[in-house]
């Protein structure tokens, strides 16, 4: 039987630890992806992911269900990412070492993918990573939540605590910067 997040939360609070395991299995990848795209470092993203679930587990008895569990989890993760950025006092570096990046891409590549396609995809991935790293934190967060996690404008506004119109403005400005940077990259390749 598939339980909803809210049902699993209730069961966890009543003492069923296995229900929390199911929540972890359901959400560990999205939370890791959010952390990676926000802070851009694999190891740190893993730490943030781990810490997110640890904090959620501790704070679960206080979870009243005003927001969706996923939104609550995202908020914990984003706060941890923000703490990380402040602590490290540096812009996110999304670019992985050259060899590692290519190895991962090559390993993940489907057999039908040609080497030319592989190189093009690798270049595009790097270009996106570089462009995303240039964005201010607020714009990057808005784009990551919208683009990769499919949150509505209102959910993003609730999550980051700003007006709806601000979310849209951040998205527009972020997309405009990305458009400019990606166009530069396309020109450079020609």
């Amino acid at each position, binding site marked *: 039987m598939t339980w909803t997040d809210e049902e699993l939360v209730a069961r966890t609070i009543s003492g069923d630890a296995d229900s929390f395991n199911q929540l972890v299995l359901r959400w560990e990848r999205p939370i890791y992806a959010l952390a990676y795209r926000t802070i851009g470092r694999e190891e740190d993203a893993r730490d943030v992911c781990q810490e997110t679930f640890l904090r959620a587990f501790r704070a679960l008895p206080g979870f009243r269900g005003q927001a969706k569990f996923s939104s609550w989890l995202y908020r914990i993760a984003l706060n941890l990412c923000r703490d990380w950025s402040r602590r490290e006092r540096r812009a996110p570096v999304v670019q992985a070492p050259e060899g590692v990046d290519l190895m*991962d891409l090559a390993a993940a590549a489907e057999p039908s993918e040609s080497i030319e396609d592989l190189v093009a995809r690798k270049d595009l991935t790097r270009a996106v990573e570089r462009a995303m790293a240039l964005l201010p934190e607020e714009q990057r967060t808005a784009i990551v939540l919208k683009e990769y996690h499919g949150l509505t404008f209102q959910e993003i506004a609730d999550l980051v605590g700003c007006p709806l119109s601000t979310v849209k403005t951040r998205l527009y400005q972020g997309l405009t910067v*990305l458009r400019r940077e990606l166009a530069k990259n396309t020109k450079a390749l020609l």
Partner: protein
Amino acid sequence: MTESSCGYSGDREEALVAHVYNDGDPVAREAFDAHLAQCVRCRDELDALRGVRAQLGQWAPPEAGFAVISPGRQSWWRDVPAWAQVAAALLFLGVSAGIANLDVRYDANGLSVRTGWSKPAAPAPVARSAPSAPGEGTAAPWRADLAALERQLKNELRATQVSAAEGAPAPHAVSASDADLVRRVRALLDVSEKRQQRELALRVAEVLRDVNSQRQADLVKIDRSLGAVQNNLGVEVMKQRQSLNLLYRASQRQ
């Protein structure tokens, strides 16, 4: 409308974002749709933003390659008190030592430790009335403890029988009862010992299975890495080939 001007009455940026993500007020969307039919600038920008989204879709985070260690997964063991964990560890060591026929001696020849299946414990007499000295007849220390426990049980049972009967029972009846008790205790011990042996064998099999699966995983990983290196090499070869082609074409032009 020309490409350089846009007469949209609302917030153009918000409308573009709402349109590109298909999120927002449907009425406002319809109004912007009508505007788009006339405004080349907005159409172009919308296409460009969609193109950006398509490129963003190519960005996937690397595989985490890990599972979050859920706090709930470890709580069952953490809930066990420390003394119980220590007791469990000692029990496991004791059982392991017993099963392995561990024999530790300290005598005039110094400390000696022997283990293994080559020296099975000598069978103890079935109806032994007198306690045996430590190390006599049984090799493992736990056998001596069990014999002492057995003696104590027998004495207590005998005392109970005496007080209940309020009279001296026939000596042969006591002996028969003792022998029966000893038989039963030994049968229980045998069953327990066999169960422990089975459990140990099970644990060993589990460890072997884990080692084997880890080995398989490592082999797969190595295989994938080799494939990746080959791909990497292919990329370099392709680049070299392209460079050579470029040089060749350039030299042809000259």
